[in-house]
């Protein structure tokens, strides 16, 4: 059974990411805060007897379900269909795009910080956040769960309610879409 301290530490470590992830989905800070609070309370009330190691996966599931509940309540079905549709536009052009080049570019721009230009760094971070927010919902969900929440493929599939193959596909498409979008914004060598 997780102690109060374990639960508190866990919630503290995850709350900001949870808020951002939800805000990406619902595009409204107040609603995102409500959803995160609701998820925290659900976790605390219903799963207080679970060991601390199980909390991350449980919380991600609860948060995803709470976000879906929010969409259902809002009855914005058209928006949901739009957001949750697969990344369109004629499929991927993975073969033509050199992600290694993009990776070097992004690391060159952000990874090695220029002491003289922290404003530029903030702008880059903001741009990256914006581009993540503009990803199709399923791709963004898979990308954030895999790389930000550090869940493995099986855990991500379980939270998203899809197959492991779909998770890999969503993640790959998200990475390529992000790399492409960032390159288009000039964040490239």
């Amino acid at each position, binding site marked *: 059974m997780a102690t*109060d301290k374990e639960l508190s530490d866990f919630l503290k470590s995850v709350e900001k*990411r949870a808020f951002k992830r939800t805000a990406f989905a619902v595009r409204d800070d107040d609603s995102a*805060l409500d959803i995160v609070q609701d998820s925290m309370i659900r976790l605390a009330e219903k799963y207080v007897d679970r060991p601390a190691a199980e909390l991350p996966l449980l919380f991600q599931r609860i948060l995803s379900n709470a976000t879906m509940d929010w969409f259902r309540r809002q009855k914005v079905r058209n928006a949901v269909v739009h957001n949750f549709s697969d990344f369109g536009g004629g499929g991927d052009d993975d073969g033509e795009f050199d992600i290694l080049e993009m990776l070097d570019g992004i690391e060159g721009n952000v990874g090695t910080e220029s002491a003289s230009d922290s404003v530029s760094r903030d702008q880059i971070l903001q741009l990256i956040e914006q581009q993540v927010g503009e990803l199709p919902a399923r791709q963004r969900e898979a990308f954030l769960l895999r790389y930000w929440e550090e869940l493995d493929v099986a855990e991500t599939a379980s939270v998203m309610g899809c197959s492991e193959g779909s998770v890999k596909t969503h993640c790959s498409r998200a990475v390529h879409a992000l790399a492409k979008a960032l390159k288009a914004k000039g964040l490239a060598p």
Partner: protein
Amino acid sequence: MTKYTKSTFSSMSHRDSLEARFGVRVASMLSERAQSTAPDISERLRFAREQALVRAQAARRQVQTASAPVVVGRGRSAVLANPLGWWFKLGSAAPLALLVLGLAGIAHVHDKAQIAAVAEVDAALLSDDLPPAAYTDPGFAEYLKTNRE
């Protein structure tokens, strides 16, 4: 059907590794950005966390109270298993039994008194010279009334 060669798997693995590196790198930048969350949002998140902890404590208490009656039940069983408990139980039941017996006795005495009174009236009527039917005669009743006056 696609035929996968050793070099195909190698390039797929290389691509996966690049994608993972890119993903982790972007995620680390998102984390950095998340640290600069507005103070009001951080405050609301702190409040939400505290609310969740309060609910967790309440849920724990509920679980503990739910298991408490079992202990009480065992306690009572232990008391009842003690011979002194039977005496205590008998002592508690005795006043009630006395009350019931007393009420039954009073009812019996009252019934006997009523029967005796009715029997006395019947005996007086039957042993008198006047037939009982005379008391139903209105003329005789009037006669008794005027004589009394």
